[in-house]
């Protein structure tokens, strides 16, 4: 075998991609007999990573339209392009690294306002409050969709462009990677000095074949893909890095699509249920309901859910946290549609109940006094549980009772509930503990026009007092009626009586149906796995070159090349060299590139 010729000048010095230069091969052609430079360069191209042209690892290519997006000044040459050229130019711009980078930064900036201004989607009360507090600013912010940032035109435009860019970037890379996975590692470069971590060793023995076979064994055991070119080995590993990157980006698209589909086919609704009452899952059964565009009335499966009990425990001992809730447990009975079978279940705050493809969450709770109002003759004109809205941590709560018919006048009542009553120094009533240790209900009674006849929907939690007259309560002709459970008191002006039968609890239940939730989770797991592979699997090449020395010894060169971030490349070359010499029965002499062949290193 002829000694290696260095053929100076045959590889382009100064190119920053020595491995893509048509490096002359060492010795005869590979076993497949492929010698044509063309076929080889095709193969080498397939082994390269496909990257947008402004990626740091892409060669700067000044030829033709390809270079159009390599730098800002290249736009000057653009007018020469035809329409197709323009389209290609625009597409390349959109799918360049720089565009992706800017779109990511825009996305980050665009997301911020939604945390500064209340959003209709997550905080509708905050939005109405904002209108009260900043009446001048409100219309301006509203005009630019500042209260709906995440569904706004501009936010949507940014992420859609980003995802188009992403798809445009990932598709060609996927195709390319598919080919690269089936291609062979490229030829061994003529001069390994230009690679990284070069080591030279002189080994005992003179069997080139044996040395190459040993090299192949070592590399294969490290899961490298190995090809022999003449008296050299070319090996590559870490294709998973690119696979992971593609899975990562692709799964981001997957999440977006799954979320969009889920939004069209899913629904969610809210319902306040007092203990002992039931809820049926149909649209009319909800207090509030939102559904995706493609949800019909029959989508809902009409199961029945009865709230048997709501158990709440409060902190009693820790002086820093008296009254802090420790646990909420709702006991429910579920009856599946078209079935008489029932089953008993529990719902807790972090443990939703899964029924018939929907999830039932326990999101809120409070008291619902059960009141009965009779006219002076004793006829019942109102009877029912009225959910009161909690106002503070000690569950001081307020509620509204409207009696439009049956009494001599329309009556509106505002009730104040103190679960454990206490009198403040000022003489005002307050609640000192959220449990019903010593409950008291006081009423402010109004008469007049409740405004219910005009057909305008009114909230059951609000009483519009503009057309009403206060008859009993603070600063009223008569003092506020006070009730403890079981008590009955007279309403003012001989209107009738009111009885507090009991004080029950209510649960605020949220029901969700999101048919693509599992898909979102699956894609999220892929995102994470892809990311881990893409960031931590090293993609690298290793080479081994053997030469028979004049004195019956083998001179071997080892070198590597990182494809992307690879902190351990040098170690990998070292380990490869060590294991290879070990396999061949130990090194006669070792040396590191440039140290001269006799000077041992490390």
């Amino acid at each position, binding site marked *: 075998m002829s000694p290696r010729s260095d053929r100076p000048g045959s590889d382009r010095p*100064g190119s920053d991609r020595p491995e893509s230069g048509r490096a002359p091969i060492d010795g005869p052609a590979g076993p497949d007999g492929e010698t044509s430079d063309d076929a080889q360069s095709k193969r080498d191209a397939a082994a390269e990573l496909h990257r947008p042209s*402004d990626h740091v690892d*892409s060669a700067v290519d000044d030829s033709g339209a390809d270079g159009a997006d390599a730098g800002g000044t290249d736009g000057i040459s653009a007018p020469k392009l035809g329409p197709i050229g323009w389209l290609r130019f625009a597409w390349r711009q959109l799918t360049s690294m720089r565009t992706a*980078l800017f779109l990511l930064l825009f996305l980050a900036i665009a997301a911020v306002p939604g945390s500064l201004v209340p*959003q209709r989607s997550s905080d509708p009360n905050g939005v109405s409050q904002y209108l009260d507090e900043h009446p001048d600013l409100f219309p301006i912010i509203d005009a630019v969709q500042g209260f709906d940032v995440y569904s706004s035109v501009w936010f949507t435009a940014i992420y859609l462009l980003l995802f188009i860019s992403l798809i445009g970037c990932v598709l060609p890379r996927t195709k390319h990677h598919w080919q690269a996975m089936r291609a062979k590692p490229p030829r061994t470069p003529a001069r390994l*000095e230009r690679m990284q971590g070069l080591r030279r060793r002189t080994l005992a023995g003179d069997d080139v074949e044996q040395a190459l076979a040993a090299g192949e064994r070592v590399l294969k055991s490290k899961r490298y893909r190995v090809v022999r070119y003449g008296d050299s080995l070319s090996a590559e590993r870490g294709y998973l890095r690119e696979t992971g990157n593609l899975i990562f980006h692709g799964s981001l698209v997957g999440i977006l699509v799954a979320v969009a589909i889920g939004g069209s086919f899913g629904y969610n609704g809210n319902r306040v249920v007092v203990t002992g009452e039931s809820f049926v899952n149909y649209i009319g059964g909800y207090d509030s309901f939102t559904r995706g565009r493609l949800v019909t009335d029959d989508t809902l499966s009409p199961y029945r859910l009865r709230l048997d009990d709501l158990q709440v425990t409060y902190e009693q001992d820790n002086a820093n946290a008296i009254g802090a809730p420790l646990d909420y447990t709702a006991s429910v009975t579920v009856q599946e549609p078209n079935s008489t079978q029932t089953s008993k279940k529990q719902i807790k705050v972090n443990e939703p109940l899964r029924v018939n493809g929907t999830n039932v969450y326990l999101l809120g709770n409070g008291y619902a006094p059960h009141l009965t109002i009779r006219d002076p003759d004793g006829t019942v004109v109102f009877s029912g549980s009225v959910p009161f809205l909690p106002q503070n941590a000690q569950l001081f709560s307020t509620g509204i009772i409207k009696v439009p018919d049956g009494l001599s006048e329309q009556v509106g009542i505002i009730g104040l509930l103190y679960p454990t009553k206490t009198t403040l120094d000022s003489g005002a009533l307050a609640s000192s503990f959220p449990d019903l240790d010593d409950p008291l209900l006081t009423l402010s009674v109004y008469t007049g026009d409740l405004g219910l006849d005009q057909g305008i929907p009114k909230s059951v939690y609000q009483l519009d007092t503009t057309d009403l007259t206060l008859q009993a309560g603070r600063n009223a002709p008569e003092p506020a009626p006070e009730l403890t459970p079981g008590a009955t008191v007279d309403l003012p002006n001989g209107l009738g009586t009111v009885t507090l039968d009991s004080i029950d609890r209510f649960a605020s239940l949220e029901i969700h149906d999101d048919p693509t939730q599992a898909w979102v989770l699956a894609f999220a797991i892929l995102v994470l796995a892809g990311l881990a592979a893409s960031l931590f699997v090293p993609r690298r090449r290793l080479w081994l070159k053997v030469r028979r020395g004049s004195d019956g010894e083998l001179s071997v060169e080892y070198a*590597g090349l990182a494809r992307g971030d*690879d*902190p351990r490349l040098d170690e990998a070359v070292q380990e490869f060299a060590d294991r290879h010499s070990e396999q061949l029965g130990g090194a006669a002499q070792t040396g590191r*590139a440039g140290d001269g062949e006799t000077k041992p290193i490390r």
Partner: protein
Amino acid sequence: MLDQYSTLFLYSAMGVYAIAFIAFTLDLSRRSAGVTARAATVQSGAERIAAARGTRVTRSAAAGSAGTTTLERPESYGPSSSDPIAPDSAGASTPLRPGKEGVSLRVGVALSILGFVLHLAADVLRGIAAARVPWANMYEFSMTGTLIIMGIFLVAVIRKDLRFLGAVITGLVLILLGISTVGFRVDVVPLPPALQSYWLVIHVMVAILATGFFTLSFALSVVQLLQARREGLGSSARAVKLRLLASVPASESLERSAYRVAIVGFILWTFTLMAGAIWAEHAWGRYWGWDTKEVWTFVIWVIYAAYIHARATRGWRGSHSAWLAIIGYSAVLFNFGVVNVFFKGLHAYSGL
């Protein structure tokens, strides 16, 4: 009772960190003095490396015997012999001769370890006092978070000589601990039902870990920017300006370290975001609702994704991407310090 001991340990840890900070600062000033003395005669390690980094054909002195002309590529990622952060490096360690010059540095490291042990004791005692993981309100996040920052720094120091970051890290930890003991300190209270979940252990722990890595990456990026400025100066100006950086690795090497630490933080943050979504689905009935805290978690994630992209974009690696790392870390601090305290949202767990 136990909680009082915890506080006591925490104050002791802060005292020890303060002395460590002084020791590290002394070391830095000694570095600049030492460098000045040699500047006239010896080209500093960092300069040599900076020179070797450029794409140019160099005939290195060591390679002279073999007569090989080697091409140094700017994007050679494997630690080469000129990688100053590698333990066998010539750059970072030479300016500090063992003996009296290294004393304050070693004192700084030793005190950091002692402070860490006291800090750990404080954290564990708090956990025992509360009978749960010690990261359920802002005071506890800060205490555990700074503990993790110190821990990651100390582990990193075993692997690479990052001791020059000691002053930045102990300084930052001291400030954070100071703010949280004064501003966020609360007594032990039971967990609200929404926090009673194993996701509190997983989600928050991983978030704290991610923050620790981001902190280290931030510190490296800051030093990198200073170093890059110094490298940009002419060599005569370099001798006077920012002298203490002469004993610190070259900006490119700092950049690579910052990146490697940041990607660990990024993957942990990705997990934090996803675990948070799963928990939100359990507790609030939806996995994503653009709650203020969710918005900021997302913003941070996107900024770091942009940082990773910037590093892969021609013309952006280096100072540009370092700025993104710093912006990303500012968002982390903002998310913790400002969003928790002043913004309205479902994540009302600051305990304040």
